[in-house]
């Protein structure tokens, strides 16, 4: 008997929780209009949507002097060695720039700019270099022959070739010798509704210099920030319409 009454209580309390949950997920906006969806990611079986465009906004004024949290986090997320030689992979790096006239100095994180019109995709002879529907520029290693045309075409020097055979890759980040690779906006995390590792690390380090999100959706913090203050594309003269924008340079 005791067990029975116990289970009844459990069922009832579960019901109460479910009801409360339902109240949060579907709220009435206006008669006949409902607001659905508080923080749910795209279902696994649904392809990336062209209605979304992932972008990043980097405020170089907030970027910490000498801080390399973003670089370290990227290396760890993707299993990169962290070495910076000419044959080592770097998906994001801190670039120091100085205005020769005014002597103003900035250090800014430079990564694949996820162009709307990516030159790397234009030049790829095999179709390995590609742009996903949601604007993330990727290399399909299954098709990459390692010719490195894309590396030459990229105005941002964002890509690297894997020169040596690798072992112990991360399950989410396949990487292999003879293929070109670059920043993927942490596509494996984005598809789980998480932010890229660099952005997360920047926030954890307390700098909040990086913002990531859908720039097509006016409700997102990144779209609001882009609307509120002028931002710059690096090499805007090339008309690539980059997904990564900078403020403060």
């Amino acid at each position, binding site marked *: 008997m005791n067990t029975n009454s116990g289970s009844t209580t459990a069922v009832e309390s579960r019901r109460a929780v479910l009801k409360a949950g339902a109240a949060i997920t579907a709220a009435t906006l206006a008669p006949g209009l409902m607001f659905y969806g508080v923080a749910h990611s795209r279902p*696994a079986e649904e392809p990336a949507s062209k209605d979304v465009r992932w972008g990043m906004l980097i405020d170089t004024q907030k970027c910490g002097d000498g801080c390399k949290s973003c670089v370290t986090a990227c290396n760890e997320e993707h299993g990169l060695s962290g070495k910076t030689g000419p044959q080592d992979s770097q998906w994001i790096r801190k670039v120091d720039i100085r205005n020769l006239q005014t002597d103003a100095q900035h250090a800014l994180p430079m990564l694949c700019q996820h162009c709307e019109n990516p030159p790397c995709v234009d030049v790829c002879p095999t179709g390995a270099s590609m742009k996903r529907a949601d604007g993330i520029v990727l290399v399909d290693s299954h098709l990459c022959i390692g010719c490195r045309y894309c590396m030459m075409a990229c105005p941002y020097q964002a890509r690297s070739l894997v020169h040596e055979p690798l072992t112990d890759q991360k399950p989410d980040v396949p990487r292999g010798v003879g293929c070109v690779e670059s920043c993927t906006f942490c*596509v494996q995390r984005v598809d789980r509704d998480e932010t890229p590792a660099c952005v997360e690390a920047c926030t954890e380090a307390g700098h909040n210099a990086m913002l990531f999100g859908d720039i097509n959706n006016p409700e997102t913090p990144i779209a609001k920030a882009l609307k509120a203050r002028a931002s710059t594309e690096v090499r805007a003269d090339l008309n690539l319409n980059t997904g990564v924008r900078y403020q403060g340079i």
Partner: protein
Amino acid sequence: MTAQSLVNSLIGALALSALLGLGTVAQAAADTPKVSAAKGDKCVENTDFMRRNHMDLLKHHRDDTMRLGIRTTKHSLKGCVECHASDKTGSVASSKEDFCVACHSYASVKLDCWDCHATKPGKKTRGKSDAKMPIDHAAHDHIHARGVK
């Protein structure tokens, strides 16, 4: 050589070849790759189907995931690794007895998945990323305003 001895030697040769033949069959049976048991009750498809078609499933899934961003887990390579990694090496391809290598070396089919992909299952941690972030979760949801039926 008489006709009789010719027949005798023919019979002898036949018997010998039959013996040898049987021997080869027995040998082959012993050499069939020993596939280690996997975790879980059963595979995502039945075994005969998987033996013949796993490469097609993987290739199809790889293109869907890589190019479209579809991330179902039923036919994913990561899924294979999670169930089939051996208890001894923790991997599907680091020793000759491991799941993938056992068959592929027997069938003499070169396998290059593991040049790039991890042969060991990942740790089941979701990491620090559960923390609150300045991400716009509204991102892929764009506000779905729907009429109530």
